[in-house]
């Protein structure tokens, strides 16, 4: 074996080992949570409300709450985020105003989530008199997700070759027709990735829902958008630190359910991506 080949093999081995290092913590976390939480996963745990100071029963209201919050967040942030990104990439000219918008979007993604929580509390809960409610919580989470959704959508749109737009426009399509049939279809996989990433983060956040929606203990299910709900991340926080003598497996079980929920969202997005990839042919 000559020297160049040897060097290449060493480099590949080192790179491979480093990549492995990245995967190790993820696998460890999963292993740890599954090992300690698996015993907690029973039918009752998934379908019953907590009982006896949350030391018994299940986490059903928290699961429902988190699902409702993700749905609400999606309903507000998806149209708003995707449409603004389309405007910024396809329509807006490069002016001081649009630069200001782009700068704000980037800066928004750097704000700590507790600040979003306080902002949501002041604006939605107090000023707009929504009270602590699913609506207020979803709006707060939606605002927090917006920057990532906008940035991901922007990048996905910018990655679509300019030529496609020229072809479409040169055939007499309007700008909107071009965006709809010649740009968006090719950007959807990228948009999905960014969206699911930011929604996964929203699903696991505690700080933004702390003052805007999350209930400490509320065994009944919500009846409207203006009700409070329990949510998985906050429930996890509560039973791990605020209530004494909750079995350890309950905490890990709750964590496991949250991870599973996020994985399920990722799975759906992978299936959707594959579906859209099949439609286009490179």
């Amino acid at each position, binding site marked *: 074996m000559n020297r160049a080949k040897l060097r290449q093999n060493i480099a590949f081995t080192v790179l491979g080992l480093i990549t492995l290092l990245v995967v190790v913590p993820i696998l460890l976390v999963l292993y740890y949570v599954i090992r300690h939480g698996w015993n907690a996963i029973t039918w009752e745990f998934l379908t019953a409300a907590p009982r006896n100071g949350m030391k018994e029963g299940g986490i059903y209201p928290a699961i429902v709450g988190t699902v409702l919050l993700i749905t609400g967040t999606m309903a507000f942030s998806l149209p708003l985020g995707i449409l603004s990104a389309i405007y910024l990439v396809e329509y807006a*000219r*490069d002016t001081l105003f649009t630069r200001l918008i782009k700068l704000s979007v980037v800066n928004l993604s750097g704000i700590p989530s507790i600040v979003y929580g306080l902002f949501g509390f002041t604006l939605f809960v107090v000023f707009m008199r929504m009270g602590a409610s699913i609506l207020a919580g979803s709006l707060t989470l939606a605002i927090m997700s917006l920057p990532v959704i906008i940035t991901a959508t922007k990048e996905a749109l910018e990655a679509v070759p300019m*030529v*496609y*737009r*020229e*072809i*479409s*426009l*040169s*055939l*007499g*399509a*309007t700008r909107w*027709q071009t965006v709809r*049939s*010649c740009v968006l279809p*090719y950007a959807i996989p990228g948009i999905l990735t960014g969206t699911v990433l930011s929604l996964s983060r929203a699903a696991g956040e505690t700080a933004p829902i702390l003052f805007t929606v999350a209930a400490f203990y509320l065994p009944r299910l919500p009846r409207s958008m203006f009700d409070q709900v329990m949510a998985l991340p906050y429930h996890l926080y509560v039973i791990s630190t605020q209530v004494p003598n909750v079995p350890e497996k309950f905490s890990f079980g709750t964590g496991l359910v949250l991870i599973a929920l996020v994985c399920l969202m990722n799975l759906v997005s992978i299936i959707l991506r594959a579906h859209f990839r099949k439609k*286009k*042919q*490179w």
Partner: protein
Amino acid sequence: MVEQNAIIKTINLNCFYDNLQVLRDINIEVYRNEILGIIGPANSGKTTFLRALNRLNSLNINYRQKGVIVFEGQNTQDIPDSLIRRKIGIIFAMPQVLPVSIYENIAYGPKVHGIRDKHRVEQLVEESLKKAFVWDELKDRLKTPATKLSGGQQQRLCIARTLAIEPDVILYDEPCSGLDPISTAKVEDTMSLLAQSYTQILVTNNTKQASRVSHRCAFFLMGELVEVDQTRKMYTHPSDPRTDDYITGKFG
């Protein structure tokens, strides 16, 4: 064969990118059903002129334009972009196909123009491919991705796609620059046959191609229109010495 009636006319057309002037006072008439060749060295403004006609230049935010372009007796400023581009189609230098099937590539134009009837679209696809003389080659592969075709086939597919929007004028921006001689000959044959029903403008770096295909020829140099005349006359007795130098290969 060439009717002396202008379908396109430019009056003092000046084009700029930022402060760089790329076209200077262009006054030219394009006659109905002629093939107008546009020759000239690189950076002489040929492509900018072509893309000014169907307003593709305006996609570049630094582009500015002065002067008037008249199409069918109407100032094009009064015509919406989508309509002018539908009337004046363009074939790009490199074959540019969308990453969908052959059929979908051609059906795209008619669909955005609101033709919903499936049979009408199918009919248009077939007619367009026949007019571009690729129907026999492609009729059994309409569902295959257009990207799988050879460069020459892709370029003729692009011609068919432009024909499907039923334009009056077809612009060609160095359509054969990436093609082999046989594909080039096929594209040139197609152009000659299309001359019966379409006005065509051919920008080319290949002076021989312009002499083979065009009825009249315009010579652009450094953003100015040096002369425009019958191709045969221009290639034998050009009225400007610079044209003579360029055609005979003294520079370019």
